[in-house]
């Protein structure tokens, strides 16, 4: 009997799943028939920073199927639930297809020429009247490498302003400053192979099961094979990750600083450290302590870092007894001792993994430093299977925002605008006068929107991101954008968002496989893909948009390309030679990604490690060679515990924490394009501890009014959800554009990284 098309498809689905699970395919001919007429191409997933490989199936000019890419080393043929949304990223009914220009309260369709003429005139007018620092670009860790590079080159090398920032400032900046201050080079030493090779995993403020499910599955697969594997989840909220961990260690918000110092205290006191490693590879420092919380506009540092001795560091740690840290954190002292010993156990391969709990923290840089301290004290670093590893949330937060360097203070490949040699190198590659690149950073992301509110920035262009939903203390910035007086906001996106609402011009963008692209993931893996389908209507890539503005501003000479993507990549690659070496473009066309440095065609799995990193010489073992000023050593920092910017008090007695859930990604622009009623995770809820609810007479799903010093929101309470708030804490996800929880968040940030703390502010909860 002939099989129907549907039966072929089901057979295909089963066969691909069997193959991905490592089982043999029962009837390959049947499954191949399901693929009839579909052309497959490779691409990294559009969503998070894991960088899973996807095979994209195209038929009749449309994407009709996706597969986990079995040849992709990251995910080995399996995607997480967000893989379902890849089918819908491009095909939502309300996709933006034409430029729109504001006429009064209405957005009116316009041609590209009209829109770009208007934008260019606003840029020219603002630059002429107020100087180049009155115009700004706010980009994204979802920019392709080409798009980020072009924007950086136009703003720093063409217009002559450092007014460029990525939304990665809101999620990865503390990881960057952590890496830079400890190792003088951004990005991790380890890679995802550590998830397979290690046996002890400390998770800090990371709900990996929901936010990095593929990586979490690799770790769980490791535990299924090796019963000695231990997963310890340090958290302030009980999650799906906590349920599957061997231990969940609840601590009070902000006290991770004290806990990590107490772990170091025990390691020192019990002489569990690796003295030889410390002598050879480490220096000690303190400093930059009077830093406040970034709440005042135009903050300046008052002190500089200073070297200290190992004995000074030991003295600094004396205060951080397990008992002291226990009092602050709520973690029993004996548990702190037990976990410090586990960290230092010479028989164990220990890893630390973290995400926003560490990075979105008013002491985000410090807490990143402190986890490195523990790995440096014990020598458990730059070895296969044992490393500290910061995980990322966006597909190219590492590859574009961090490595291309689309921050106000940065240039490509770890270089900074404040260094004259770095500016000279950039000017040489770009073929411009070095004086064109300003030597002072201007605004971090929060300050950029404060400057728009104040009127110091007049023209702001946002690409591939949704700041008017994702910024903290959102009310100020939403109002600021619409204050008039010459302010002009341009938003490039693929769908209407809370940011297009405040725009003067909306530009329709091409997305993902509607254009050629390149992303870099959290393990230094660069991945290339080709355009596979046309963008709808008149939508165009952000790369085209940026180069078109350049042309209209008289900077077209900076972009003399025939095959822009490849030529931009090869130009960018010149910055990386001799350190973060990227491979030639063609190598990425063939490979399922390569981890830099790629030298002589060989990728690097473990940086700073002899036998793995080409820059470490024979006999050196480990060498933190990027930190030249400290003789190739890493820095252990004395970083004290300090309280959060705002803590609960009598008037506002709860901690508010915000974050993500499994079924939605960030502000929901791509995962929330269906009527609320049909969604798997329909709307934001307020997770609350049942004891707190009982005390206040609040029942499950009853509506409550949540108020901070900055705003109010009404949400139903969820007492039985997947995530469980601890007593005195509430949690709200930020994907729901109808419930803007970020209006309540404080816009305090880590003054070293400039990254806001979305995890801690004080609120009150009342029956609505």
């Amino acid at each position, binding site marked *: 009997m002939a099989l129907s098309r549907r039966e072929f498809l089901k057979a*295909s689905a089963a066969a691909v*799943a069997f193959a991905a*699970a490592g089982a043999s395919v029962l009837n390959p001919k049947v499954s191949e028939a399901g693929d009839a007429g579909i052309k497959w191409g490779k691409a990294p997933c559009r969503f998070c920073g894991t960088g899973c490989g996807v095979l994209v199936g195209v038929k009749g000019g449309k994407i009709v*199927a996706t597969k986990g890419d079995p040849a992709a080393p990251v995910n080995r043929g*399996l995607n997480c639930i967000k893989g379902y949304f890849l*089918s819908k990223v491009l095909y939502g009914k309300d996709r933006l297809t034409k430029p729109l220009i504001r006429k009064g309260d209405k957005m009116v369709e316009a041609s590209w020429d009209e829109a770009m003429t208007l934008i260019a005139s606003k840029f020219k007018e603002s630059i002429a009247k107020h100087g180049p620092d009155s115009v700004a670009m706010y980009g994204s860790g979802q920019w392709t490498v080409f798009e980020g590079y072009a924007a950086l080159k136009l703003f720093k090398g063409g217009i002559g302003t450092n007014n460029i920032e990525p939304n990665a400032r809101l999620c990865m900046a503390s990881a960057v400053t952590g890496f830079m201050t400890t190792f003088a080079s951004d990005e991790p030493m380890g890679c995802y192979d550590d998830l397979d090779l290690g046996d002890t995993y400390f998770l800090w403020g990371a709900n990996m099961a929901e936010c990095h499910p593929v990586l979490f599955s690799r770790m769980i697969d490791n535990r299924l094979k090796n019963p000695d594997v231990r997963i310890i989840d340090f958290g302030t909220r009980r999650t799906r990750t906590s349920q599957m961990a061997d231990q969940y260690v609840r601590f009070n918000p902000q006290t991770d600083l004290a806990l990590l110092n107490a772990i170091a205290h025990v390691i020192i006191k019990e002489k569990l450290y690796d003295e030889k490693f410390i002598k050879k590879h480490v220096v000690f420092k303190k400093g930059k302590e009077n830093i406040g919380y970034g709440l005042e506009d135009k903050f300046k540092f008052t002190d500089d870092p200073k070297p200290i001795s190992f004995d000074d560091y030991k003295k600094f740690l004396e205060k951080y007894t397990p008992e002291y840290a226990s009092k602050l954190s709520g973690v029993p002292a004996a548990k702190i001792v037990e976990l410090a010993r586990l960290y230092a156990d010479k028989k164990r391969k220990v890893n630390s993994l973290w995400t926003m709990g560490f990075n979105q923290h008013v002491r985000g840089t410090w807490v990143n430093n402190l986890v490195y301290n523990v790995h440096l004290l014990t020598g458990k670093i730059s070895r296969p299977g044992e490393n500290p590893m910061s995980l990322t949330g966006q597909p190219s937060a590492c590859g574009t925002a961090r490595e291309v360097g689309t921050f106000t203070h940065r240039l490509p490949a770890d270089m900074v605008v404040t260094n004259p040699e770095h500016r000279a190198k950039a000017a040489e590659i770009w073929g411009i006068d070095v004086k064109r690149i300003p030597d002072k950073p201007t605004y971090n992301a929060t300050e950029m929107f404060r400057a728009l509110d104040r009127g110091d920035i007049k023209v702001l262009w946002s690409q591939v991101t949704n700041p008017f939903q994702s910024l903290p203390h959102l009310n100020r910035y939403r109002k600021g954008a619409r204050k008039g007086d010459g302010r002009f906001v341009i938003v490039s996106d693929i769908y209407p968002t809370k940011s297009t609402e405040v725009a003067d011009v909306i530009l329709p963008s091409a997305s993902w496989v509607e254009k050629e692209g390149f992303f870099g993931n959290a393990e230094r893996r660069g991945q290339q893909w080709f355009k596979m389908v046309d963008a709808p209507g008149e939508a165009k890539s952000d790369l085209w948009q940026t180069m078109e503005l350049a042309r209209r501003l008289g900077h077209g000479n900076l972009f003399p390309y025939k095959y822009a993507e490849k030529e931009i990549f090869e130009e960018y690659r010149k910055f990386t030679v001799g350190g973060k070496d990227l491979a030639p473009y063609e190598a990425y066309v063939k490979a399922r990604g390569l981890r830099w440095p790629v030298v002589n065609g060989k990728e690097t799995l473990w940086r700073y490690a002899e036998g793995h990193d080409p820059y470490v010489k024979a006999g050196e073992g480990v060498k933190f060679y990027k930190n030249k000023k400290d003789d190739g050593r890493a820095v252990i920092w004395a970083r004290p515990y300090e309280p959060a910017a705002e803590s609960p008090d009598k008037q506002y007695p709860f901690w508010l924490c915000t974050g993500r859930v499994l079924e939605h990604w960030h502000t929901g622009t791509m995962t929330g394009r269906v009527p609320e009623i049909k969604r798997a995770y329909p709307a934001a809820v307020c997770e609350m501890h049942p004891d707190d609810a009982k005390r206040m007479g609040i029942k499950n799903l009853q509506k409550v009014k949540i108020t901070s010093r900055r705003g109010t929101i009404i949400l139903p309470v969820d007492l039985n959800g997947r995530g469980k708030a601890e007593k005195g804490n509430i949690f709200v996800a930020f994907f729901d554009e109808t419930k803007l929880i970020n209006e309540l968040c404080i816009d305090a940030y880590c003054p070293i990284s400039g990254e806001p703390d979305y995890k801690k502010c004080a609120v009150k909860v009342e029956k609505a």
Partner: protein
Amino acid sequence: MPVSGVVISCLVGCSEAVSGRIAAFDGVEVHGVLPDNQIVAVIEADTVDAEVKLVSQLHEVEDVVSVRLAYHNFEDL
């Protein structure tokens, strides 16, 4: 109607029990229980959102560690 092939990972020794639990879901067909605590299933639903809803529910089934997507066809949407 979209069709997807998924791999469900279970706690050690629980895959037979999980297989019984998930077979009760409308739109989920178990195609194989593998010896290494994994189950292969095919998901069918009217819309992608209904598929996501089903997979979300599968995540909550007792002894399920993860549900991962291997193949997704949505050509007749």
